[in-house]
């Protein structure tokens, strides 16, 4: 490896070439169809490196050898044109659109650009226009429903809430299944985003830091074949982001984008407003359920001991929320001279959430520049500085989450009409949880991120057919957090201070450095046979440092300084990982229709012992364009047909420090809450970890096979792409439970395997196309089937997340992520066994109660254009997949829902009515006929976890925009190059036939391999507003 690096350094020092005698040719390039001038067209002297772009007016000037030469004019999407130069000094050229329009160039792994038609694997593309319809703060959300095989899991509508991306299912058990994010060739961190179940706020995945207005396009490399060159980190695919750049020869222009959206909760439960708080029909002022008396204006004593008239407050819960907003602005300056170009931009995003004290403000400063140092040596630099600050509210299964019981506040509580705290700041509430207003105001979380992403790159043309490229990239950020738990908080909140007040100061630094050297060449071996190759080396270094001080027992209310805590615990965790990879990528092209791409990569990872730290993996992808190979196939109907097939294997490294076993900080706990935290009574302690490492740890591998077909019909008015893939992951590294008689409870080792099979389908249609009107429609579909084939010997299942009941687990022979929980006792015929009291009883064993995987997902994108008026909308579809909804369970058991007032709860003589009879049999086999009250029905239903597992099928109008671009003709006398105004929205409509009252798109755990787990989740939101785009 070392020698490779030095050879590059040597190459850089090679002397420049001697120039032959030459003369100058000038001219102008225009569009053959419109006659407009074309800037940015590459004009090259064939067989040399002499090249120049056309300027803003389509003009060029180039030196050609006096002995005669040929000029090649190339522009993406247009057919190349060659013109022989004899004695002319002026050559004007008209370029025509490439009829196939398939010479679309795609950025693939390692920044290698390839024509889409040559690809033997599937790449999904989202361009800037499609990306910025809905304008969510988190750019990951903007990918939802747009690419077949790519599913986006949004965790909630809270400010800064994370969203995960899963490409073609999961490839590992407990490690991350998130794809690699790459910006302009530099891998960046998209970590974070996982939430604690029982404390804290909704965390962000770090791609949230990106400004969508800086993005030119996003390519998604689906699976190992496409991403093989990225090696270890791309087993779950890669998201390749290309940012906007200035172009050489482009006149200076200013681009301004602005959008303002209102944000509001997108779905509220349907509450009843007939019955008051209490149980058994009696008013109980401290009860948190609504099984009390009918509200008839009677006088009662409330929880503060005051007399009040019993009244229903239909909006007592809705009033906790406010209208939020999302304001985004970007201004960019770009331009270019003959040998240099740049783009400079500033963007800011200001989001105010649907709860008070929930805000996010982000500033993005971006600079991209490139310059030709010599005709052979070009350089580029790209820097992004991001500053982001946010405030958030508690979530999860804890009493400081305002919606732990907030969704089912008794109907007669006039929450907004009473103070939430007394003069001393003590909270006032009827229930033993935090008053929602009090916790939102008092238990706070603040963070600030400072992040720099950048790279410098150099490219040197060694020979006309061989380039050397070097790129050094960095992504580093520091996240500073402060959590404050008010004295008297009843929940765990940020610090689990048990009401004594708590504060924590955390500083987390994450630095990724990436060095990348590639030699790339292209050679026509024979007129029919060409060869492209890239060989290179990559060096990756990742280091993190997490420093946290947790203080409890505060002396002074609202003094948010760690010195205010009389008990303090310091924590620190550092990690470092390094990886060196060498790779080769060779593409053979035969005429215009066969392309074989073979790659190999060998990684050396610091996370393994020396014996296992080197591992190789190959890939091969074949593309065969039938319509080129057999022109007879091409007719009025069929325009294009291509088949593709690929095989790839990708190795994945281990978590740092998994090869050894350590003495960790001492402590004691028993799973019920009691615990001893060291230092104990001034003593330090160490204990041999219960988790053993494995010195023989080796990489886990994911192998994929894929076949696909792409066709275009009716002059590209109709096209489709269909792919079938099988992905096998083996030797998976996870913490395998072992017999604790050994002294360990688990060992991190290679065990287990996993399989995904799926089909993807993409259909593009232009149903209507006239000179003024076009309608483009795109439909994508993905069906993935996963199976956990094996965990480890003697290990029937492992729990990914959750409680004793319910939980999400991996079980051999089952799909990835099945839900387990308590169920009612049933007989062999599956009938409920009902007790003498008319209620079912619990089976002592937990059983499978749901499958979190959707049957299929899909998206329908519509784009209608009429004379500058554009209507775009995306319908996002998810069929099947279960969600465990604790909120729905709570809403039903507490008697606040409309359905709990479906039948009169009282008989005419004022006794409790018994309108419900469980369908089932009694112990003696006879049909149950025992009627029970509404309260007992819904309360008993709640005891089994199976009662609140719901099918999350949903069809939603995910994004829509209606805009008008003022015709360029009208703008000619104005300084504007382009002016577009419009309305847009996100999550506008939702149809969830089997999921009542709430939005099923919610995951309390955030970015997690355990999906479908909603535990007192905060709501999802919709947004709508207007936008403006202009250029000067």
């Amino acid at each position, binding site marked *: *490896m*070392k020698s490779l*690096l*030095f050879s*590059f*350094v040597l190459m*850089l*020092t090679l002397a420049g070439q001697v120039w032959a005698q030459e003369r100058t040719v000038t001219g102008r390039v225009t569009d053959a169809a419109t006659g407009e001038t074309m800037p940015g067209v590459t004009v090259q002297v064939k067989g040399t490196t002499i090249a120049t772009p056309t300027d803003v007016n389509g003009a060029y000037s180039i030196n050609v050898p006096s002995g005669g030469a040929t000029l090649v004019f190339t522009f993406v999407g247009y057919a190349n044109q060659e013109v022989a130069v004899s004695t002319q000094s002026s050559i004007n050229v008209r370029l025509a659109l490439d009829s196939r329009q398939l010479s679309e160039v795609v950025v693939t792994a390692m920044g290698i650009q390839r024509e889409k038609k040559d690809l033997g694997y599937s790449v999904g593309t989202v361009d800037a226009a499609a990306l910025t319809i809905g304008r969510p703060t988190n750019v990951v959300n903007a990918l939802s429903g747009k690419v077949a095989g790519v599913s986006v899991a949004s965790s909630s509508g809270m400010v800064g809430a994370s969203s995960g991306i899963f490409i073609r299912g999961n490839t590992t058990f407990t490690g991350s299944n998130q794809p690699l994010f790459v910006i302009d060739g530099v891998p960046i961190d998209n970590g974070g985003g996982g939430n604690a179940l029982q404390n804290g706020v909704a965390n962000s995945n770090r791609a949230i830091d990106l400004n969508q207005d800086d993005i030119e396009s996003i390519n998604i490399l689906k699976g190992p074949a496409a991403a093989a060159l990225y090696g270890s980190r791309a087993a779950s695919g890669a998201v390749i982001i290309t940012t906007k750049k200035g172009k050489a020869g482009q006149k200076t222009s200013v681009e301004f984008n602005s959008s303002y959206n209102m944000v509001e909760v997108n779905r509220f439960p349907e509450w009843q407003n007939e019955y008051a708080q209490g149980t058994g029909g009696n008013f109980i002022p401290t009860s948190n359920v609504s099984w009390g008396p009918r509200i008839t204006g009677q006088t009662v004593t409330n929880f503060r001991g005051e007399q009040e008239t019993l009244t229903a407050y239909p909006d007592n819960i809705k009033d906790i929320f406010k209208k939020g907003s999302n304001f985004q602005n970007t201004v960019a300056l770009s331009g270019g001279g003959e040998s240099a170009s740049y783009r400079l931009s500033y963007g800011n995003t200001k989001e105010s959430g649907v709860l008070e004290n929930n805000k996010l403000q982000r500033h993005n400063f971006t600079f991209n520049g490139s310059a030709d*140092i010599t005709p052979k040596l070009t*350089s580029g630099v790209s820097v992004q500085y991001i500053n982001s600050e946010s405030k958030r509210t508690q979530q999860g299964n804890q009493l400081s989450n305002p919606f732990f019981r907030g969704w089912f506040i008794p109907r007669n509580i006039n929450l907004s009409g009473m103070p939430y705290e007394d003069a001393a700041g003590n909270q006032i509430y009827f229930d033993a949880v935090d008053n929602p207003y009090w916790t939102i105001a008092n238990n706070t979380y603040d963070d600030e991120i400072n992040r720099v992403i950048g790279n410098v790159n150099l490219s040197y043309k060694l020979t006309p057919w061989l380039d050397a490229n070097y790129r*050094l990239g960095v992504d580093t950020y520091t996240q500073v957090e402060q959590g404050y738990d008010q004295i008297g908080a009843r929940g765990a909140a940020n610090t689990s*201070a*048990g*009401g004594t007040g708590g504060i924590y100061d955390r500083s987390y630094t994450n630095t990724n450095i990436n*060095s990348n050297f590639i030699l790339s060449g292209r050679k026509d071996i024979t007129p029919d046979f060409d060869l492209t190759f890239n060989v290179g080396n990559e*060096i990756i270094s990742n280091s993190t440092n997490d420093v946290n001080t947790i203080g*409890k027992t505060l002396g002074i209310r609202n003094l948010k300084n760690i010195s205010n805590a009389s008990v303090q615990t310091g924590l620190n*965790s*550092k*990690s*470092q*990982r*390094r990886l*060196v990879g060498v790779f080769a990528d060779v593409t053979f092209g035969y005429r215009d229709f066969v392309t074989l791409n073979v790659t190999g990569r060998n990684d*050396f990872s*610091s*996370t393994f012992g020396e014996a296992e730290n080197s591992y190789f993996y190959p890939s091969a992808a074949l593309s065969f364009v039938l319509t080129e190979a057999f022109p007879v196939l091409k007719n009025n109907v069929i325009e294009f047909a291509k088949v593709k097939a690929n095989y790839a294997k990708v190795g994945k490294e281990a978590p740092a420090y998994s*090869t050894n076993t350590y*003495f*960790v900080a*001492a*402590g*004691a706990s*028993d*799973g*019920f*809450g*009691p615990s*001893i*935290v*060291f230092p*104990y*009574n001034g*003593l330090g*302690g*160490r*204990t*041999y970890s219960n988790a053993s490492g494995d010195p023989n740890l080796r990489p886990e591998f994911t192998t994929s096979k894929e076949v696909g077909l792409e066709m275009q019909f009716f002059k590209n008015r109709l096209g489709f792409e269909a792919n079938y893939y099988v992905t096998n992951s083996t030797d998976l590294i996870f913490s395998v*439970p*072992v*017999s*604790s*008689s*050994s*002294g*360990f*409870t688990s*060992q991190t080792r290679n065990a287990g395997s996993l399989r995904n099979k799926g089909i993807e389908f993409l259909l593009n249609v232009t149903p209507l196309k006239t000179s003024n009107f076009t309608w483009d429609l795109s439909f994508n579909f993905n069906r993935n089937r996963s199976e956990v084939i094996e965990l480890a010997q*003697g290990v029937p299942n492992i729990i990914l997340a959750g409680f004793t009941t319910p939980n999400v687990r991996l079980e051999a022979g089952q799909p990835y992520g099945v839900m387990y929980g308590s169920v009612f006792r049933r007989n062999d015929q599956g009938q409920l066994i009902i007790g003498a009291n008319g209620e079912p009883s619990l089976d*002592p064993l937990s059983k499978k109660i749901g499958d979190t995987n959707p049957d299929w997902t899909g998206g329908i994108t519509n784009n209608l254009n009429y004379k500058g008026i554009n209507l775009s909308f995306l319908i996002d579809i998810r069929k099947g997949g279960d969600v465990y909804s604790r909120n729905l369970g709570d809403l039903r058991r507490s008697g606040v829902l409309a359905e709990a007032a479906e039948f009169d709860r009282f008989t005419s003589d004022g006794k409790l009515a018994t309108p419900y009879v469980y369908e089932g049999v009694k112990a003696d086999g006879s049909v149950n006929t025992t009627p029970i009250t509404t309260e007992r029905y819904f309360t008993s239903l709640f005891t089994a976890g199976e009662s609140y597992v719901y099918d999350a099928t949903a069809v939603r109008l995910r994004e829509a925009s209606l805009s008008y671009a003022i015709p360029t003709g009208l703008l000619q006398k104005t300084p504007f190059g382009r002016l577009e105004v419009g309305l847009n929205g996100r999550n506008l409509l939702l149809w969830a036939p089997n999921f009542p009252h709430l939005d099923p798109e919610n995951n309390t755990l955030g970015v997690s391999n355990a999906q479908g787990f909603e535990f007192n989740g905060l709501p999802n939101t919709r947004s709508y507003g207007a936008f403006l785009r202009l250029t000067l």
Partner: protein
Amino acid sequence: MKKLKYISAGVLAAFMLSFSSCDEFLDVNENPNSPTEAPIAQVLTNATVNTGFRNGSDLHRFTSLIMQQFSGQAGPTIQTREYQRYLIQPSDLNNLYNAFYATALPDIEYVINNSEGSPRYTGIGRILKAYTYSQAVDVWGDVPFTEALQGVANLSPKVDDDAAIYPELFKLIDQGIADIKTPAKASLLLPGANETIYRGDSLKWLKFGNTLKLRLFLKYSEKDPAFAKSQMDALIATGGPFMTSNADNFEMAFVDATASQNPIHQFEVSRLNYTFPNKYLVDFMNEKVDPRRASYFTDFPYGSGQYKGAAAGDPESTNYSRLHTYLRGALKGTITPRADGGINANAAYNNAYTGSAPIRMLTFAEYNFIRAEHALRFGGGLAEATPFYQAGIRASMTAAGVATAAQDAYILANPLLAVNPLQQIIQEKYIANYGVALEPWNDWRRTGYPAITPVSSTIAATDYIPRSLYYPEAETNSNTNFVQKPDMNVRVFWDTRQ
């Protein structure tokens, strides 16, 4: 131009040269957060703290509920309520088993194996190891011993015959005593405050070692009375040393600070209304107007001087006496009762206790009751047993803060009688061992005393009182050498009472 080229080449070369070789560049997998070796002084601290914690946690909960010292309440499906009706499932026992095999024993083993030249540490390690294994045997019977704790070298240790494990424990204690007897100056390292039970006091460890042996020999009282007698006789003849006061109690003191309080108190705080004193124990003490009640329980109604326990199957209520200072530590605040005399389990109530009461594991009181039983059955009979019986009561009462006069009155009113003297001794031992995990259940299995009545068959999950606990589910899942017991009626080797 050339200059630029050289500069860039230079920068790149410098960057690459900063890693002198690939191997060195990749050699960063050494964990900066945690060491692979640790000083035995710090490891022993974890072992003793966890020993105390274990004895106030799951182990105490299961056994005090089975033995009707505690009662589980707070509504259906609450764990303590289930345990009390003998619904203890294999999955409930994973944590308890880990507390022995994954938490305490590997650290004790590490101290023993890495204390060469520091025999004081070795000795404490060996005695602790014997104590820990004796508890594991008493809970489950056959458990891994000879192949246990070998780490990844053996991930499926075999399960050893429990009768064969006890003799090994005697050897361990003897070795430990011999180690500790080494003069202090011959021990490189000396345990001190880092050993959180006796703070490194070697004489106390010797007393504990000998008293532990007495406890274990007595377990043979039914299975092999001759062995029990001969071993106890011989040990007593050596003069020990044995425990001589409550200061010798094998107990772990806790501290009034967040996450440092004793686990019984912490459980009260985190699991409101899960546990109340059991009606059986409370009535038993009410009958004798036992002065220890004032520190064992809160009175109900509060301030009345009356005590009321809860029973299995009681409807949900908080109108009972609650656990008090003996288990939770001294009062530092005031308890404000409700109008009906009950106490709400709120923050004010929970914060009224220091939470620093010790977790008692083998007390001077128990030593005296062991001696009383030995005297009664294997020695000079009633007359020789009586002083030990009385000393046991006095030791317990002193620990419970009972004044001498009240002690005298109680002893006068409750003399050791010729009728059923063994029952009387064990009953007093049962009261004295309030808060001591496991031992009351051991005594009941061995002697049948106190003669508790099984929980009513209408609510009990089994038709017997458990004689051992199931193997944990995590073990039967991961180690094929474990064969789950058919029920909890399977007995440990010394439990031969019919």
